């Protein structure tokens, strides 16, 4: 009709912003961007140790970056708001994608498209056309039978001038797409159910406050306590043998929350089994669950990989530690070695106060181990158990502490026995070991006797005076002699109290640099001579000095003693703590978790696994045979497509075509085929 013109500037209909948003959210670009963004974000949490105490982070990064990282939530990144937003976006994107594609997918799976036009079929990549004898219905039936025999689901429809036979195979490929993507949604929902969003919300609203102080469970304020109605959590608790707990601690960022349980868990017995190498082989806990709802307490043994699931609470055997072993320690004074040892009774995790000449000290017992197994020196394949050990810290008034690791039993090295004590100033360093030689009776008496004499100025003076001829030049006058005696006594005292450190300090203070080595050597000679002399006297008293002189063992004892004296200067403790007795109490480390979303997540996982295999290994293939009356009877138009792997489908199509042509008894071949090149 005239008068119909297109307005040149007619505006295109505007899509609603809702439609644009939905299209964006369901777009592939967004999905892939999110996949990559989540990957990168997740990396942060692996290279930056999560949930450490904040002072550690301050130390590591300095105050500025510590602030920055804290604002970004990097110390608990997987619960950070922005990370959850990313996950949420992925969930929305997947959901929108499923929502938009499901109708198409379902239609593709079920709809055979029996109304497809011949000209559409001729536009297919894979197509062929030929003439066949026989009438249309017979040929169509033949074609259908062939397709069915080849494993296709077949439908046929007779139109006015032609019959269309449609075959479909592998439609579960589409189901695979649906399964995988719905699975992501399901998994995210399950994860959300198990997540701690309600907790974060409570915290944001001020209902709960994370506790950061080191408090025992019964002193934790109510705002850091969670009631038993918390549906999802994961916490841990350490129960000593014989103890009970009706709570667990949830780690939140740099602190924790106390989670109450509706039942009490009692640890009746804990057992740990070791391999010969000292590695734990298995450890298990005999638990008793006390619940008012139970007629009698529930007995159950849990082990690693064998948790107890009770009323939806999963109780895991996670670790074990000392449960407060009782310790009896004999403390000997190194400053006043002639004093009787002091008996200290304590327990792991408890502190004791001791008064020493150097000031009051707090003994903090940290750990106790009944066995210490290491590979043998002689034979790497065998192992030696060094026996019980105790770890403790000695803290002075100023708050500085040194950590010690003492073995209860004498340690044997090259046939000789030593009291071994490890020392370190910070947890980052390895232990340095002090070896104090033991005498033939297996005690430290000889060492302490020698030490008390070395520290006794008068005794030293008498020894030096008696030895004067060897040490002091004969032609010196009385004043020099007295001076030398004084300085030797002073030297011995210095070495006795301060060890090698003091000696070195003295040398550096009093001697010019050029002469230091020589001075050291002469000091050491003097020390060996004087202390040796004191030692010989002691041997004579013990009656072990025979005509042959000092035995080899005793000579070695002397060397070891000097080494011990040298090391004692940096030992940092006025006391030598010998573990005399113990009562071992073990504690079981349990993890208790509640995860109502677990089965939802598992369902999602099963869907995901099935869906992935369907998507990759089932190919949705569809073929059509359009039969119409032709010159010699019927004209057959065959076309098809597959949704994966063009090359493979091309091969299959050719095979089907050959079979169809044989089946329909082609009289004359008029073949129109698309060139089989790899179409990109």
């Amino acid at each position, binding site marked *: 009709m005239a008068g119909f013109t297109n307005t040149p500037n007619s505006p295109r209909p505007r899509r609603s912003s809702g439609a644009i948003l939905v299209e964006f959210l369901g777009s592939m670009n967004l999905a*892939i961007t999110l*996949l990559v963004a989540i990957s990168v974000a997740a990396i942060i949490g692996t290279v930056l140790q999560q949930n450490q105490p904040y002072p550690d982070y301050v130390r590591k990064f300095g105050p500025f970056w510590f602030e920055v990282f804290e604002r970004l939530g990097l110390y608990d990144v997987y619960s950070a708001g922005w990370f959850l937003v990313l996950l949420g976006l992925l969930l929305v994107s997947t959901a929108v994608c499923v929502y938009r594609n499901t109708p198409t997918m379902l239609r593709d799976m079920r709809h055979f498209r029996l109304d497809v036009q011949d000209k559409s079929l001729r536009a297919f990549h894979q197509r062929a056309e030929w003439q066949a004898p026989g009438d249309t219905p017979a040929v169509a039936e033949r074609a259908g039978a062939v397709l069915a*025999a080849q494993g296709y689901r077949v439908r046929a429809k007779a139109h006015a001038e032609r019959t269309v036979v449609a075959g479909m195979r592998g439609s579960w490929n589409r189901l695979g797409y649906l399964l995988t993507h719905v699975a992501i949604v399901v998994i995210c929902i399950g994860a959300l159910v198990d997540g701690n969003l309600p907790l974060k919300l409570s915290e944001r609203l001020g209902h709960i406050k994370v506790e950061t102080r080191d408090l025992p469970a019964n002193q934790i304020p109510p705002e850091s306590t969670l009631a038993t109605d918390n549906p999802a959590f994961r916490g841990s608790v350490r129960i000593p043998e014989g103890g009970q707990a009706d709570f667990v601690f949830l780690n939140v960022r740099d602190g924790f929350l106390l989670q109450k349980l509706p039942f009490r868990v009692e640890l009746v017995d804990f057992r740990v089994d070791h391999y010969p190498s000292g*590695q734990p082989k298995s450890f298990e806990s005999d638990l008793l669950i006390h619940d008012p709802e139970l007629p009698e307490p529930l007995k159950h043994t849990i082990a*690693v990989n064998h948790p107890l699931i009770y009323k939806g609470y999963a109780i895991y055997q996670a670790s074990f530690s000392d449960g407060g072993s009782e310790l009896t320690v004999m403390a000997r004074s190194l400053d006043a070695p002639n004093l009787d040892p002091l008996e200290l009774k304590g327990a792991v995790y408890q502190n004791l106060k001791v008064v020493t000449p150097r000031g009051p000290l707090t003994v903090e017992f940290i750990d106790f181990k009944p066995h210490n197994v290491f590979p043998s020196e002689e034979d790497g394949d065998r192992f030696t158990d060094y026996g019980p050990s105790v770890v403790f810290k000695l803290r002075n008034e100023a708050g500085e502490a040194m950590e010690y690791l003492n073995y209860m039993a004498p340690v044997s090295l090259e046939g000789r026995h030593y009291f071994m004590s490890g020392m370190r100033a910070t947890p980052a360093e390895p232990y340095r070991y002090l070896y104090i030689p033991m005498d033939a009776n297996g005690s430290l008496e000889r060492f302490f006797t020698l030490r008390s004499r070395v520290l006794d100025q008068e005794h030293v003076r008498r020894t030096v005076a008696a030895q004067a001829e060897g040490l002091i030049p004969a032609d010196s006058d009385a004043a020099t002699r007295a001076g030398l005696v004084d300085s030797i006594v002073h030297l011995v005292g210095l070495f006795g109290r301060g060890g090698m450190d003091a000696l070195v300090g003295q040398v550096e203070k009093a001697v010019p640099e050029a002469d230091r080595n020589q001075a050291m050597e002469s000091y050491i000679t003097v020390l060996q001579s004087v202390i040796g002399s004191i030692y010989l006297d002691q041997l004579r008293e013990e009656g072990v000095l025979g005509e042959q002189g000092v035995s080899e063992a005793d000579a070695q004892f002397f060397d070891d003693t000097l080494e011990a004296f040298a090391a004692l200067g940096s030992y940092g403790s006025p006391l030598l703590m010998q573990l005399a007795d113990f009562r071992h109490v073990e504690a079981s480390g349990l*993890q208790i978790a509640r995860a109502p979303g677990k089965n939802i997540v598992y369902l999602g996982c099963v869907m995901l696994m099935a869906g992935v295999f369907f998507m990759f290994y089932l190919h949705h293939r569809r073929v059509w045979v359009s039969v119409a009356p032709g010159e010699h009877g019927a004209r057959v138009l065959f076309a098809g497509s597959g949704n994966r792997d063009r090359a493979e489908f091309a091969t299959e199509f050719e095979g089907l075509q050959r079979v169809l042509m044989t089946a329909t008894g082609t009289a004359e071949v008029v073949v129109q085929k698309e060139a089989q090149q790899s179409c990109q």
Partner: protein
Amino acid sequence: MSVTSEAMKDGLTRPAWWRRLGWFDWAWGALVVLASLYTSARYGALMDGFEMVILAGTVPVTLGLGWMWKAMRPYTLVVALLSLAAIALYGGELARGDSNFFLKYLLSSQSAIMWMSALFVMATAAYWLSLFMRSEFTGRVASALTWCASTMGFIGLMVRWRESYLIGPDVGHIPVSNLYEVFILFAVITGLMYLYYEGRYRSRAMGAFALTVISAAVAFLLWYTFEHQAHEIQPLVPALQSYWMKIHVPTNFVGYGGFALAAMLGIAYLIVDRLEPASVWATRLPTLAQLDDVMYKAIALGFAFFTVATVLGAMWAAEAWGGYWSWDPKETWALIVWLNYAAWLHMRLTKGWRGRPMAWWAIIGLFVTTFAFLGVNMFLSGLHSYGTL
């Protein structure tokens, strides 16, 4: 429409899969079933319910594998026979491994693994040589060497399984528990996956590339053995004493193998892409289309199994660690690898990306995978440090 008997007689029907099996298929299948029945009878008392299910599950998996990939039938037979021979030679005495000639130089787990290492390196050289020399014979030798290497590697693992029990009944475990053992598994699985594609595509041109990554794994394995005495069999820590290890770890390595192969083919793709199509080299190397296709297939297979492995890992964590997901570094990196290849597959399947960007992505994917596999154990701490260096 039903299948008419006429259609079947015409030979137009594709016969059902069980009709397409030959006598050897059936005989071999019977052996597989018998072997698992024997195993369950002999060792059933030591296995819990789940392990019986896993043993039962290996039957259809093995049958499926052997009937789909015919070469697996003689392979499994040779591996089984030689492993059983080695076990018989041991006769319950671990010390015989040092005195018996065949054990000492051939079949004890360490010897077999050394043979595997040597054979893989030789196979790599042979594949490269066959490319340079364009020699069909060298190519066949290379294939044969790869088959032998995979055989010796698997035998090594089987004999090591037995040796761990000879050390002590509570020390014995399936040899997939630490970094050393899984590296052997990686070499064997990647070798077998490569051989599968070699057979499918009837082309040895990819061999040089695939074997190169296996040789790299072998080099690492040898270094680890000599530097850290990693070959010694250690008992399992309590957390690993579970039937889950039998399924989580091997499926993971099918994943890693697929990703490693795809990355090497990506490298090959980039090389071929730069060559003149008619050049001497380009005709010897696989075509771009073939490389692209196998790269996709390897990643698809790897991804499918990696998904299963990650899910199994989560289920194991729920039994051992207090929850199916702890954002532990190893778990998180497994997720990162999964997301990376999910993105790769989306780009390919939905947006139709092909060619150089995808090849680059596959190569970068291997770095991500390697970090998840090794880097986490080496550099990061966490619950998963069973294979520290």
